[in-house]
């Protein structure tokens, strides 16, 4: 009663062009959440009336907080039994008439109960929450703490009417403003990225054809309910999860769900225990490619397979990005240093006899002085610059912090179709004249070195061109052949393009030999026949045939060898078998070709009947085989190779067949040459994957069904022991399990994907990479990064940029932190030695937010010191962004030299104006007293308060200028961590600009009239600029010597202790 054409369930050879639908999520206006359908993990009693459970569940409002157990449930396979039911059982379960459908009232009732058939949108974070995250996240906390401490200190001072200074107030305000502006900036950056995201969204309302009460009606997809009888036809999007009850040549494209690119036929018969594999279920939001089908809706909205994946995605907890962890670690270190210094000087100042109040002010002052004000801006700008650079290279980063994540990546879990491959069937091999020829599968296909002198080739090409229903779409003559769009399925298009390119115009060929009759392909016959007029004598016909090689061979009694016909023998059959196996083993889709010159009795005008065959169907002449594959993208093998030399493991996770997967894996180098896979061995020895001694094999192809039975320990073992891993035939949830497995090993995992099925993995991975062209919206939303060109090779450039920015951030931080020491020490010495304050708050801010800024950012433009793609990924445990070696270098060594330079200038200015260093000790009390207006200097002169304050500020300006001068040297030494500057060169133009900029800025601040009023900076004598130069030279020489020692004693003590 229910017809079906495709009974075999075998590999389907012909299909329509592949479609990659993005999923349009229709967000219902009511935001009611429909709970994912409860699972029945045991194969015990069948759950009765699943929809009712959905209904009951809905009443229990799901709490905001995600139930962990629930997530675990979602990760498991979908257990449903609707596909196993007979039609009668189905009809009974959903109380629906299989021809008339639901009664409209009943449908309305169910709609009211279950809610609309839409996916619950992932809970979007409100904009203000995002903004606050930018404002208070990570590094900002440090600055906010600083600002609050400043206000506290100012409060204390005003309350106790201590000193009339407002420095703390200004500092607090500046800190707050800096964080606020930086927060706005990064918020703006990310908002810009998400705007680009928005443009991907396509909100096309979908219609569905349902039959209710015997009447066909078009309704909105969101009104489809469980139990509805729906009809789908080619080109439709499946409106819900449907159990088919009848089908006519129905094929669906499940690529958005399973990642498998080939359309699959659908019919009402139960073929597989697994819901995803069985052929009688169509899934929500996949596409019907051709044919028509009718079915009963078994799940809608969030309870569909697709909906469950979406819920799983939004429910997953996302870990911290590596850079966020690094910044946290950095904040810990800085806080520790600050608190240590603060507390020890608090104690010291109490011992020196300062009042409690003063000591507390000092404590706060020291802690705040340790806050690197400019670093937040520097880090943000550096990351933004890299994000921009990556966007130019087709990696769009959604989240700024993800910029670096790619650099730390140690495992990439990649999709196959579209990412590693071109997503386009192409002729890969030909076999005729008992010889295998390789065809050009590169993306351009410009040159074709194909041998065209064999007569067999002419005949093969004619069969491939004529017995072919594909055609080029019109008006594409200017395009290269490979780029032209075609009608017809992937294999036929591949043949068409191949023949057009390497033989002659197919159009002409078809005009010369018009088609008179045809038996199209179907999966029962698995062949296709067409009968044409012969080109040479237009009176006779030739019968051309192509199809599954073993079927073709069965029709043949002879074969062609170099254009000569020989009768079929065992030797030929064996050669054929070997070739077929060989090509099939490469994961290629193989087609056989044969022909028959019809005798004169079938001359022109003969009516061929293809239903009741009235022409010979035997003794054909076998010509050859052509095999096709979706070839790897050209840049991918090199990219995989780069990954490997960069110590990144590339794991292929695909829904495709193991053989195809393995072939592509070998083709792109994921499985390297000569590596025996465990699968081969298991096939030979007939033992299970787990029983093979894992030390013997490096590569493994894991089948999804095996993965399903594995415990996480077993998965861990596989991930640990094999270097080359391919997961084939994986189900949607398994990619997530694989990603989690990798993360358990302490890896930083990048996952690529385009389908909805990939989005949980994308979300869970440390960096999820979605495809910009083929990716579904759901996957793009879940991802951190989007590959605009879908090319795996772009990931590698991303990795390179990520690693570079990590290195350069280290340099930037080292540079910025160094000037912290000359900024803190003046205050410390002011406290303990009682000298006039050598560096004030305003000048510190001028350094941190003024002169240091551009040079620090310019380090982001620094090129790599060595091939960063030849070293292992960063070990997140040991290789920290900021480690004690960096702090040691910046604070303990270079910073100290800088401080000395500043103090030297300070003492020079004071001494040359009459205050010799020895007389300064302990002078603080009188110096700071505004009623002492006759303070005597070393020469007996007497100074008013204001006069000596101007001198003090002049000294502070001198100290400031000295820091700028020693920062020149610091910038140059921070360019490299190992190499000499002479090796690295001064090619970084931004850096040179940075040096000039900071110098001019310093001069501007120093000499502009009015600066004495505005910032209390005073003009300096030229000689005072030069005081710091010896120290600048010292820094340069010291660090060059240190690096020289590091280079010449790799692993030596100096390297262990000072290489950051």
């Amino acid at each position, binding site marked *: 009663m229910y017809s079906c054409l495709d009974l075999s369930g075998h590999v389907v050879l012909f299909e329509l062009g592949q479609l990659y639908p993005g999923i349009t999520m229709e967000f219902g206006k009511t935001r009611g959440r429909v709970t994912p359908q409860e699972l029945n993990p045991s194969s015990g009693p069948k759950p009765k009336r699943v929809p009712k459970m959905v209904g009951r569940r809905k009443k229990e409002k799901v709490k905001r907080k995600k139930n962990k157990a629930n997530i675990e449930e979602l990760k498991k396979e979908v257990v449903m039994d609707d596909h196993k039911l007979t039609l009668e059982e189905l009809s009974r379960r959903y109380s629906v008439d299989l021809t008339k459908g639901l009664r409209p009232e009943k449908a309305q009732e169910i709609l009211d109960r279950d809610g609309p058939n839409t996916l619950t949108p992932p809970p979007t974070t409100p904009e203000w929450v995002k903004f606050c995250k930018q404002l208070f996240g990570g590094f900002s906390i440090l600055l906010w703490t600083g600002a609050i401490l400043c206000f506290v200190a100012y409060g204390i001072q005003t309350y106790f009417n201590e000193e009339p200074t407002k420095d703390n107030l200004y500092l607090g305000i500046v800190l707050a403003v800096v964080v606020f502006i930086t927060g706005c900036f990064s918020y703006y950056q990310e908002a810009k990225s998400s705007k680009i995201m928005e443009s991907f969204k396509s909100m096309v309302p979908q219609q569905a054809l349902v039959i209710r009460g015997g009447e066909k009606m078009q309704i909105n997809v969101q009104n489809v309910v469980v139990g509805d009888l729906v009809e789908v036809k080619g080109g439709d999007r499946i409106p819900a999860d449907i159990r088919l009850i009848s089908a006519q040549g129905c094929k669906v494209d499940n690529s958005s769900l399973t990642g498998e690119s080939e359309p699959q036929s659908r019919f009402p018969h139960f073929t597989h225990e697994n819901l995803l594999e069985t052929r009688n279920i169509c899934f929500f939001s996949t596409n019907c490619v051709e044919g028509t089908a009718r079915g009963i809706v078994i799940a809608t909205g969030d309870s569909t397979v697709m909906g469950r994946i979406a819920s799983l995605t939004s429910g997953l907890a996302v870990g911290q990005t590596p850079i966020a962890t690094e910044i946290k670690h950095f904040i810990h270190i800085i806080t520790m240093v600050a608190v240590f210094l603060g507390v020890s000087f608090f104690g010291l100042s109490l011992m020196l006899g300062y009042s409690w109040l003063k000591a507390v002010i000092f404590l706060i002052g020291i802690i705040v002085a340790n806050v690197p004000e400019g670093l937040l801006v520097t880090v943000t700008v550096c990351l933004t610059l890299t994000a921009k650079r990556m966007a130019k290279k087709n990696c769009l980063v959604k989240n700024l912090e993800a910029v670096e994540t790619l650099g730390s990546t140690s495992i990439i879990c990649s999709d196959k179709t579209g990412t590693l491959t071109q997503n386009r069937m192409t002729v890969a091999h030909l076999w005729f004249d008992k*010889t295998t020829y390789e065809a050009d599968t*590169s993306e351009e296909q410009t040159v074709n070195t194909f041998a065209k002198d064999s007569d067999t080739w002419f005949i093969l090409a004619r069969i491939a061109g004529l017995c072919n229903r594909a055609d080029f779409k019109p008006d594409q003559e200017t395009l290269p052949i490979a780029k032209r769009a075609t009608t017809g399925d992937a294999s036929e298009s591949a043949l068409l393009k191949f023949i057009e390119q390497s033989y002659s115009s197919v159009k002409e060929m078809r005009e010369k030999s018009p088609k008179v009759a045809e038996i199209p392909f179907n999966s029962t016959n698995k062949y296709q026949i067409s009968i044409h007029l012969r080109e040479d004598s237009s009176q006779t016909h030739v019968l051309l045939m192509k199809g599954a090689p073993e079927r073709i061979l069965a029709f043949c009694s002879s074969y062609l060898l170099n254009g000569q016909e020989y009768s079929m023998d065992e030797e030929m059959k064996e050669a054929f078998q070997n070739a077929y196996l060989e090509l099939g083993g490469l994961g290629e889709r193989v087609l056989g070709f044969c022909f028959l010159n019809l005798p004169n009795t079938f001359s022109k005008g003969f009516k061929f009947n293809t239903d009741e065959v009235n022409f010979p169907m035997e003794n054909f002449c076998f010509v050859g085989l052509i095999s096709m594959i979706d070839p790897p993208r050209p840049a991918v093998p090199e990219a995989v190779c780069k990954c490997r*030399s960069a110590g990144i493991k590339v794991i292929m996770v695909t829904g495709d067949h193991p053989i195809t997967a393995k072939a592509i894996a*070998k083709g792109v180098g994921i499985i*390297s040459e000569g590596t025996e896979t465990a699968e081969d061995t298991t096939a030979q020895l007939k033992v299970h994957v787990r029983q093979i001694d894992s030390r013997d094999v490096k590569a493994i192809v894991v089948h999804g069904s095996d993965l399903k039975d594995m415990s996480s320990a077993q998965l861990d073992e596989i991930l640990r022991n094999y270097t080359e891993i391919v997961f084939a035939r994986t189900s949607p949830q398994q990619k997530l399990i694989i990603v989690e497995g990798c993360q358990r090993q302490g890896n930083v995992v990048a996952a690529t994907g385009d389908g909805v099925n990939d989005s949980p993995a994308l979300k869970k991975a440390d960096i999820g990479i979605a495809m910009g062209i083929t990716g579904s919206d759901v996957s793009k939303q879940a991802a951190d990064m989007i590959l605009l060109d879908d090319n795996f090779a772009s990931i590698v450039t991303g990795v390179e940029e990520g690693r570079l920015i990590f290195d350069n951030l280290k340099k930037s931080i080292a540079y910025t932190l160094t000037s912290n020491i000359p900024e803190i020490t003046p205050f410390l010495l002011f406290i303990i030695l009682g000298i006039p304050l050598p560096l004030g708050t305003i000048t510190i801010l001028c350094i941190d937010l003024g002169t240091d800024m551009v040079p620090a950012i310019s380090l982001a433009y620094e090129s790599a010191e060595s091939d960063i793609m030849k*070293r*292992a990924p960063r070990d997140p445990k040991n290789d920290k962004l900021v480690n004690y070696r960096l702090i040691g270098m910046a604070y303990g060594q270079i910073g100290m030299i800088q401080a000395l330079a500043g103090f030297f200038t300070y003492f020079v200015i004071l001494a040359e104006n009459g205050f010799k260093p020895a007389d300064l000790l302990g002078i603080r009390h009188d110096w700071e007293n505004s*009623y002492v207006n006759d303070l005597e200097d070393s020469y007996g002169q007497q100074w008013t308060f*204001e006069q000596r304050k101007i001198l003090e500020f002049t000294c502070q300006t001198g100290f400031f200028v000295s820091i700028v001068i020693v920062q020149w040297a610091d910038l140059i030494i921070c360019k490299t961590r190992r190499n000499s500057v002479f090796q690295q060169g001064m090619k970084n133009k931004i850096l040179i600009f940075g040096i000039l900029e900071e110098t001019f800025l310093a001069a501007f601040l120093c000499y502009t009239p009015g600066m004495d009023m505005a910032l209390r900076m005073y003009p300096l004598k030229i000689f005072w600029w030069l005081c710091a130069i010896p120290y600048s030279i010292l820094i340069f020489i010291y660090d060059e010597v240190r690096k020289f020692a590091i280079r010449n004693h790799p692993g030596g003590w100096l390297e262990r202790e000072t290489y950051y």
Partner: protein
Amino acid sequence: MCGGRGSRAGPLPGAGIGTLARPLKRLQRKVSGGCGGGSSRGLLSHHPAGDSTSGLVVEGRERGLILLFYLVFYGFLAALFSFTMWAMLQTLNDEVPKYRDQIPSPGLMVFPKPVTALDYSFRVSDPESYRGYVDDLTKFLKSYDLEEQKNLTACPDGALREQKGPTYTACQFPVVSLKGCSGVEDPEFGYSTGNPCILVKMNRIIGLKPQGKPRINCISKGEKTATLSTYPSNGTIDLKYFPYYGKKLHVRYLQPLVAVQVAFNTTSTGKEVTVECKIDGSPNLRNQDDRDKFLGRVVFKITMHA
């Protein structure tokens, strides 16, 4: 370094199926061969072994080395710093500072030395309340004792006294010119009688040569609650005390002083007066600056309780 694609190939030599695998293998060899056989471990760069160290002995030695390193490093820095400081000090003149442009014009200062504010407050009936002031003045005027001034030169009035060295002499300052504020006649400086004395002096600046006829001009601000008398008369500062040649050369130099004595009007109810003193009569001595309230002027308040 990485092998190219190389999947383009012509017809393969030889016939038969067995040859099929070869080109593919060749392709794969190119791929993997380029990456050093797929094992990346050997290529890993020389990263320091992180923070891990094995064994306490090693760690102890390491710590010791760091300590030693920093000791040597800081020792070296300290030596270098001391050297540069020493070198800088060598360039300095012991007698005159290198630059004097930061103090072109002197400030004014009053005695008794103000501690927290320029506010003198005392009770005539309570000697304890003004003892601090009196002691301060006595102490300050100690160097002006006749005994102390014995060896000083009695210089002619009314002209700058430029000296060429090598020895520099200081001029006598006759304390008697301060009259009732000299402490000679009244050791209480008028505090006990309700006519307190305040001394005003001009800051010392090396090489300063006042032009014109400098004097200290004091006026009471606001309501006329008190009469001010200045000594020496008119508050004149004699030019003979200038220029000053510095602590080292100009030993025992005495600054000229001006005393202000306040006499509260008996009629006025409030015994409070704000006095402003300014340098006057010399074009190169500034007495007005927005920021520096003590440049050539001084303002103080005297409150006397009954």
